[in-house]
């Protein structure tokens, strides 16, 4: 086919070529659509899997058991339960034996390990709340052990599932919302674990990060955008900030380990060290967001302020910074959300210890929510799968809230000049 023939409309060759080109156009467009659809489908698959697996983690399986306290061999003084030592009294009272007796009495010998450590704790809490229970035969709903819980949710051993079926037939099993999951800290028994300790640790860590990274980031952004002379130092600062924003987070963990722990001897596993490490990681993100926000404030504002006699500092702090603040805040919140979800650097500085009490301050050992998720994901007990996914749901809710806030701020306050 020569060139003249190719562009002749009479013999149809041109039309067939146009048709081919249009088909290619449609194919290309379809490929784009498929790419977007696949990406969104992955997101949906991930969220649905987590939600499906995790929603059960907010509930627990409870079994009804009748305990005849006066006739049991339990020696507990109701008066001691009202005192300040109530927790210790209950813990040393030997409730396990009573529970085991009552369970086998109600549901046969197969129910020997119906109740676990979490159940004992729950019974203790109920007794402290209502010491009058001790004077009578009481019907109590208690969370079951993790082995039975897994069986009740359909994934357990055959014996355990038979036990659950027998109990269900007598109305002895129910599902209830697990408030302890929101109130407790880590535990060895999956039915007794909670995320409050990790959430508190996350909160303290983010507080330290915020208190350090936000002021330093904003001040550095102001200097680089408004005052820095163009020279090699400024270039070096700029390159190192842009590079730090892309350095793998685990490297910051190594820095934290070498400098804060091994050199400065700050307390291990503490939110203080975690916050410091994450602040170094978040600061470049805030600087970059801050510079973009400051850059988008039009020069006419600066000229007007300078024109009426403001000093350069006053121009920046009285006029440019307030106008740039929404943009800076958006970037800061996104940076904080990233810090909140960060795991690897915190593993390096030892925030992976088993910590059964929520931290009271920034120098006490703590863990954070993502690390808690990582720790639970390593557990062998099947019941932890649900708890891990439930913790992931909580983490994702926080991330969504923070990102939503950032998007809202951007749409609400962003000015187009």
């Amino acid at each position: 086919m020569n060139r003249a023939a190719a562009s002749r409309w009479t013999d149809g060759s041109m039309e067939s070529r146009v048709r081919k080109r249009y088909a290619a156009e449609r194919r290309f467009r379809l490929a784009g659509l498929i790419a977007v659809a696949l990406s969104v489908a992955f997101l949906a698959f991930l969220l649905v899997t987590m939600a499906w697996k995790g929603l059960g983690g907010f509930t627990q399986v409870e079994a009804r058991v009748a305990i005849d306290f006066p006739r049991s061999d339990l020696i507990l003084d109701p008066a001691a339960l009202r005192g300040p030592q109530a927790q210790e009294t209950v813990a040393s009272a030997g409730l396990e034996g009573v529970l085991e007796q009552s369970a086998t009495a109600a549901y046969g010998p197969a129910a020997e390990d119906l109740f676990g450590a979490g159940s004992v704790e729950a019974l203790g809490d109920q007794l402290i709340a209502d010491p009058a229970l001790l004077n009578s035969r009481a019907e109590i709903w208690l969370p079951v052990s993790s082995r039975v819980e897994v069986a009740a949710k359909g994934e357990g051993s055959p014996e355990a599932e038979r036990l659950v079926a027998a109990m269900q037939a007598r109305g002895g099993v129910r599902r209830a919302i697990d408030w302890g999951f929101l109130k407790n800290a880590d535990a060895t028994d999956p039915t007794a674990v909670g995320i409050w300790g990790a959430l508190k640790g996350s909160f303290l860590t983010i507080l330290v990060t915020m208190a350090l990274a936000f002021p330093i980031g904003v001040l550095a952004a102001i200097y680089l955008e408004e005052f820095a002379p163009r020279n090699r130092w400024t270039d070096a600062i700029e390159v190192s900030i842009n590079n730090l924003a892309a350095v793998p987070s685990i490297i910051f963990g190594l820095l934290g380990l070498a400098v804060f722990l091994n050199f400065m001897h700050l307390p291990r596993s503490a939110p203080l060290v975690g916050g410091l490490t994450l602040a170094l990681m978040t600061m470049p993100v805030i600087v970059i967001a801050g510079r973009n926000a400051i850059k988008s404030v039009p020069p006419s504002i600066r000229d007007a302020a300078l024109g009426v006699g403001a000093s350069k500092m006053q121009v920046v702090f009285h006029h440019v910074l307030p106008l740039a603040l929404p943009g800076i805040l958006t970037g800061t919140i996104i940076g904080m959300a990233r810090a909140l979800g960060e795991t690897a650097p915190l593993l390096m500085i030892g925030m992976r210890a088993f910590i059964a009490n929520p931290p009271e301050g920034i120098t006490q050992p703590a863990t954070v929510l993502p690390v808690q998720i990582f720790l639970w994901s390593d557990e062998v007990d099947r019941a932890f799968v649900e708890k891990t996914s439930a913790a992931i749901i909580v983490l994702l809710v926080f991330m969504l809230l923070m990102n939503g806030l950032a998007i809202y701020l951007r749409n609400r306050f962003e000015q187009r000049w």
Partner: protein
Amino acid sequence: MSLSIALAAILVIAAAAGWAAFSRARSLRSKDRLHSLPVYHAAFVALWAAVPALFLLALWAPVQNQLVESVVLSSPQAGALPDSAMQRDVILQEAREIASGQREAGFNPESADLAPVYAATSARYSMAGGMAAILVALLGAFWSLRRVGVEFRARNAVERWLMAVLLGASLIAILTTLGILLSLLFESLRFFSMVSPAEFLFGTQWSPQTAIRADQAGSSGAFGSIPLFWGTIFIGAIIAMIVAIPLGLMSAIFLTQYAPSAMRAWMKPMLEILAGVPTVVYGYFAALTVAPLVRDLGLSLGIASASSESALAAGLVMGIMIIPFVSSMSDDSIAAVPQAMRDGSLALGATKSETIRKVVLPAALPGVVGGILLAVSRAIGETMIVVMAAGLAANMTLNPFASVTTVTTQIVQLLTGDQEFESAKTLAAFALGLVLFLITLVLNLIALTVVRRYREAYE
């Protein structure tokens, strides 16, 4: 007197001096025209009262710890201490904690004897340091208060302070970079004094388990890092990119060129959410859902060695994680191509896809490539996905269903669990970190330069 009391005292002095300056300047203002507002006078005085004293305190705190330690070690009670440096440090640590009331009693009986010495010495030294700092605060307050006057340019002085603060804040970035480099270098040098750099960089055997007993099998430990870097590249730069580049690039093209604006307004935040999901969630997803699927797929394809910790599972999920990153970088560079180029191509009769493939993409290529390099740098430094979904066996294999290990997995593995400092095993993590840092540094520098050059070309 502890240092925190001195700290509080300094802040009170600064506030009081600032208030004094404020009232003095205000009373001057009623008679005469001041150069600066009273609030600047107040800030000037408060800064001079607080900053030098706080600086002194910050310098004193570590010096004091050293001094107290040396005094305690030379005290008669310290004669009972064991010779081993590690045990001595543990006992000192316990004594320190007992002295500061953090714990009731130590595990070692020696620490109980040392605690009172510790408490007394540190009380003496913090008294001295605290008094000196308070003295400096008072001196600064009086000196600066005397300067408050009608002619005094307090605003300019405060602005000089502010300027120093701004400069200091921006220097922290350089300090962090230096800190990373120095701490990694320092620990790596100690590692390389035990293991030769040539073995580390070119060796193909990785088994860092150093033995507890000397006669144990494999007691030497092998530190050849090639298999780790191969695993990292295989997962992060090959499998993940095969997923992320086509999907990310095509999503960006579709969203910028074809999608109606309503769809774009919905899809972009969706992709941002994908980018905001914490990596530990991706890791859990990979380990719990994707890895079994991939293993079953491998088994059904007749690959008997299909592992439940396959490179493919980790790489796939990592690719999904990188999609929004590639997409937003390509989005930016496609948007930066001047409209005139697009219009010219369309005016010649090219279809939209021809314009995109033959005009827009070649013009945006440097930016896209820069974005992909940044994505690779992020993928090879990604930790949680590979820690949770990839294996620990250092294999050099091309089989995506087999298990490989990565640099970041090994760093986590080496530094968690029982740590004995000074051992080659622990220090190897820092050497791996150094190499990882240098690789990502080079990738980032190339990418950032490419992206910046290209942006300038069209501006």
